[in-house]
């Protein structure tokens, strides 16, 4: 082996080159490694030469067309000394041969052999190729780690090779005094987090790889870790297969060392299985020393103490270390060793591991589960809790799962006997429900929770039926009658007259209300609880000021601006304090029945603040479609907070109510006009038409 000390595997001064660096995994890992340690001097990928891999906040990584190109173009002082191979399995041997060919040619030209270690991350390299790589590298004084390694990390130097530590190695692996040597790359991370619980950090974290052939053996790593002054504890994670542990323990027996070792051997069940095919292909019979039980025997004999138990006897004299049988005992075991050897821990202990569900909902099952298997209340630690809150807030309302909806419906169903709407029998609704609540059920999948909500819906629908015979929807229906169209044409005509500037105010109003209420720090409030009136009043004041600022800015820049949706009726605008009489009916109903309605109250406060703060010249009227939006928002708020309805559906309901009512109003105008009107009586006299285009009569 070339490495004489553990730091020879990785230090902050290393210069790392990455093969196949533009590959999916190599690219994302290299970006994170560069953010951590900035030790990647370049990479190469077929046909990708000349590109750069951008690293946020750090220097980009240049990509070369092949290894030779990289050597030719990089200056002498930053030629790579560590190589990471991410190429596909059938290309790995070629890559290694190529690297060694260039290394040899350097040596022949009197240049120093730069490459010291090759890390092969690629999995599924054949045993034959692994053996060939081993001998080829050994002949050229190069160490090979892998194949199928995840890499190595040195938190002291803040550098890593490969993916150990994930996307945030700085937070998951803290510097300290334990060297982890693990057959599994993922377990380096897991073990590091267990040790953190005992106040112990990591000196080096090494993933050996677990293919049939491990090209740098556990014995070699152990030698280096034992000689490393900063390593106080060695943690081994091993799996069945190979004679590496037997070899390592024979070595340990041949030397005198007081450095403690903790071993965890995974895979007890493999004893009873023939061919275990996991990511690790090590389970091959080579006589004594390869199986789980052999490895248990080898280590227990060496340690000469029983495996660690949670109530490990203080009188047991641990000199060489011990085996642990349950991995989550590791913090306790490490603490035991450090205390019994009077070793100083690296930092204060973190909270010991425990069952901590970040999220749980056992629903009905939870009521049946006996207390001893009930999960405790848990919470996500920071920064995850903050992220959870943020993402949860961003994802306000239900995220519906999409599917092919052809020949599928949640709405209507006929089970052979009963017609159902969202699972509810139509006959029951006919007997006990109302039209308005059933309409709501059809549109949303549920009926309003409170009776007063149904009453409000009904009132507002009456209020929406018409805004006079001169309204666009009514005019459209009358035009249809005048032309001799059918009532169905009239309905469509009325609908055709609704657009962005007419009738869509209710859509914008409910969106405005939902967005504003969602801005509250604790938005999951009961909007019918008058105790929340202060919060809502503050929210209205804030909204008024924001609008005022926005309006002033827009006017200063001579820009047009969007008005607050749902307020400012064109008819009721001249008084100091304006009210739409239809809305007054709703307000009176709420007042007389002692019902607090957060959304309506918000609008009432908003128009008042706009006036008081002189943003509007008088107190604007709240429009009927604004009130309709507020009533719907009240019905939906709880379900939105519980993620039981999508925001999109919520936005559409007041619009549908408006459209539905106006179509009914329009058809009334049609029927009236059809009975009493004369054909084509809506045709305008030509002399009333202004001709705006000048034309030559001779044309």
């Amino acid at each position: 082996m070339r490495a004489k000390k553990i730091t020879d595997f990785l230090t902050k001064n290393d210069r790392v080159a990455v093969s196949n660096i533009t590959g999916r995994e190599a690219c994302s890992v290299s970006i994170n490694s560069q953010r951590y340690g900035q030790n990647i001097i370049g990479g190469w990928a077929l046909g990708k030469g000349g590109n750069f891999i951008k690293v946020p906040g750090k220097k980009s990584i240049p990509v070369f067309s092949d290894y030779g190109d990289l050597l030719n173009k990089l200056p002498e002082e930053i030629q790579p000394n560590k190589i990471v191979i991410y190429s596909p399995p059938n290309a790995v041997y070629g890559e290694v041969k190529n690297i060694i060919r260039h290394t040899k040619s350097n040596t022949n030209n009197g240049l120093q052999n730069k490459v010291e270690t090759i890390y092969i991350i690629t999995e599924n390299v054949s045993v034959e190729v692994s053996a060939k790589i081993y001998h080829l590298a050994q002949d050229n004084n190069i160490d090979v780690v892998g194949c199928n390694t995840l890499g190595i990390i040195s938190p002291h130097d803040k550098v890593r090779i490969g993916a150990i530590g994930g996307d945030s190695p700085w937070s998951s692996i803290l510097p300290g005094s334990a060297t982890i040597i693990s057959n599994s790359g993922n377990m380096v991370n897991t073990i590091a987090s267990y040790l953190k619980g005992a106040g112990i950090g990591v000196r080096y974290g090494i993933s050996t790889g677990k293919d049939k052939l491990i090209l740098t053996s556990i014995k070699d790593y152990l030698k280096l870790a034992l000689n490393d002054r900063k390593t106080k504890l060695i943690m081994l994670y091993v799996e069945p297969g190979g004679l590496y542990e037997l070899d390592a323990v024979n070595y340990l027996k041949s030397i005198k060392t007081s450095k403690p070792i903790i071993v965890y051997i995974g895979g007890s069940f493999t004893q009873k299985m023939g061919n275990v095919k996991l990511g690790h292909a090590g389970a091959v019979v080579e006589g004594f020393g390869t199986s789980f039980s052999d490895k248990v025997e080898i280590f227990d004999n060496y340690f000469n103490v029983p495996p660690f138990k949670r109530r490990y006897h203080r009188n047991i004299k641990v000199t060489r270390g011990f085996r642990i049988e349950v991995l989550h005992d590791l913090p306790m075991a490490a603490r035991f060793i450090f205390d019994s050897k009077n070793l100083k821990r690296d930092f204060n202990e973190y909270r010991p591991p425990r069952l901590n569900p970040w999220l749980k909902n056992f629903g009905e099952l939870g009521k049946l589960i006996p207390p001893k298997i009930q999960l405790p209340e848990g919470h996500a630690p920071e920064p995850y809790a903050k992220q959870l809150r943020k993402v949860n807030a961003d994802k306000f309302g239900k995220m519906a799962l999409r599917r092919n909806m052809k020949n599928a419906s949640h709405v209507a169903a006929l089970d052979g006997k009963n017609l159902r709407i969202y699972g509810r029998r139509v006959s029951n609704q006919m007997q006990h429900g109302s039209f308005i609540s059933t309409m709501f059920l059809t549109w949303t999948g549920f009926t309003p929770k409170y009776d007063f909500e149904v009453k409000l819906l009904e009132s507002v629908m009456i209020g929406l039926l018409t805004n006079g015979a001169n309204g666009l929807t009514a005019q459209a229906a009358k035009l249809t009658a005048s032309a001799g169209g059918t009532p169905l044409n009239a309905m469509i005509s009325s609908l055709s007259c609704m657009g962005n500037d007419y009738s869509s105010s209710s859509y914008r109003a409910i969106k405005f209300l939902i967005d504003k209420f969602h801005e509250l720090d604790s938005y999951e409030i009961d909007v019918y609880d008058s105790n929340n009136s202060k919060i809502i009043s503050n929210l209205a004041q804030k909204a008024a000021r924001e609008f005022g600022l926005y309006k002033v800015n827009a006017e200063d820049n001579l820009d047009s601006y969007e008005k607050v949706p749902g307020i400012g009726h064109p008819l009721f605008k001249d008084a100091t304090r304006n009210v739409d009489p239809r809305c007054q009916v709703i307000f009176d109903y709420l007042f007389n029945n002692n019902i607090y309605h957060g959304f309506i109250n918000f609008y009432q406060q908003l128009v008042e603040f706009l006036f008081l703060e002189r943003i509007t010249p008088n107190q604007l009227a709240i429009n009927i479609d604004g009130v309709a939006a507020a009533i719907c928002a009240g019905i939906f708020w709880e379900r939105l907070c519980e993620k039981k309805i999508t925001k999109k559906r919520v936005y559409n309901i007041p619009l549908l109510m408006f459209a539905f009512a106006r179509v009914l109003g329009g058809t009334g105008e049609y029927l009236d006009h059809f009975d009493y009107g004369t054909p084509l009586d809506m045709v305008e006299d030509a002399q009333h038409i202004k001709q705006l285009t000048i034309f030559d009569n001779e044309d």
Partner: protein
Amino acid sequence: MLFLTELTFLKHLARRFNINTPQYLEWPAARYDLKDFMDRANNKALAKADILTGSRGKGGAVVNINSTTEATKELTKLSTAYLKEKQARTAYLVEYIPQKCEVFTAITYDSLSCSPVITISLHGGVDIESLDSSKKRSFVVENIYNGIDAYQVGGWLGSLKCPKEMISKLAVAIVSLWDMFISCGFMSCEVNPWRITKENKVIACDFKATLDSNNFRQNNLGFDLPEYPEDVSDFEEEMNAWNNSSYQGQAHVSEIPQKATKKRKKDNFDEQNICNGVLPILFGGGASLIVTDTLIKCGGDPLFLSDFGGNPPYERMKKSMEICLRHHLKDAGVLLILGGKANNTRIDVTFKAISDAIHEYAYLRKGRTIPVIIGRGGPQLINGILTIKETLEELEWPYAIFGHDTPISMVAEYTASLYKFIKRNPKALRSLNKHFKGEF
């Protein structure tokens, strides 16, 4: 790993590599052919089952034959023999070779020297493990590029005190075996025994080998590997094919023999209540071993071993999950989705894929509802767990989600206790599946 048996060796490989073998005849065969074979073999032959297991002799899968009638009877029987949970594919006859000496040879890779190693014993025909270490020796192939030659092998045989008259032909035979080993991409191969006749003819009288599925040479053998009955379950077969279709992300599963988990098959009443184990979707080789260990120790009965780590892309993970649900949701008590703190696997991608698979294959096809225990850490964790939470909320599946601050072994321990409760309380599963109507 793929296995090669003696019959495949006799049919396809021995002649190609100039290795002497006894005459053989594959069953079924016409009585005329059988009679002809027995005549040529002087009515002394061995009937053997073609089966993927060792110790055939001790297990009664090798029988001495002295007549055509006996051959017909035994071959019929052996062709459906069942040994060590494996079923025979067919049976065959080989002529009996009288010998003056039997030799054992095996070639494999040695984990310490990282080289091929040839083990030779002049006391062949018995279990090599039972032989005293003084009676067998392993020789390292020093140069894997050049391989070995007959002079080198001759030297090894000489050091074993092999009778001189045997050395030349035995050395050539061992070199031929090496040629086959390296040309076919074997991980190991064994001839036990070579029988040395009075005329010093060296004949390979039994053979087995394992192929390295990662070695490109095993794709170019020149013949199709025979299929053995019940070698793998439908689930394993489908997942293996899926796993081999790409090297991006792993899709490794292995069924667990019943003896390993102490589980009882379908011991629970009607279809709605079948609860045979925990359905484990595990990530990372190390985590898989630890979680499976813990589940078995705590009575969690994992339905299979799995490792879906290696940063699988969306499509890869989704189909892997679909296959697992299709084969095993119907007899699972708890779904466990568990891995350590991922280094590179994007949790949002894998969890989105899992969520979509659960939605499509469990919910839309009206599969049963089971509780889900999740534990994971790694890149894009929060987006991942919120995605899966929303799906489970929507489907009304009970769930608990742990982060990487809860050790995977503790999550596995808890899952086992929840599973045991559900298994003992059919009411619990039934309460979740009021509308379940059997197979989906």
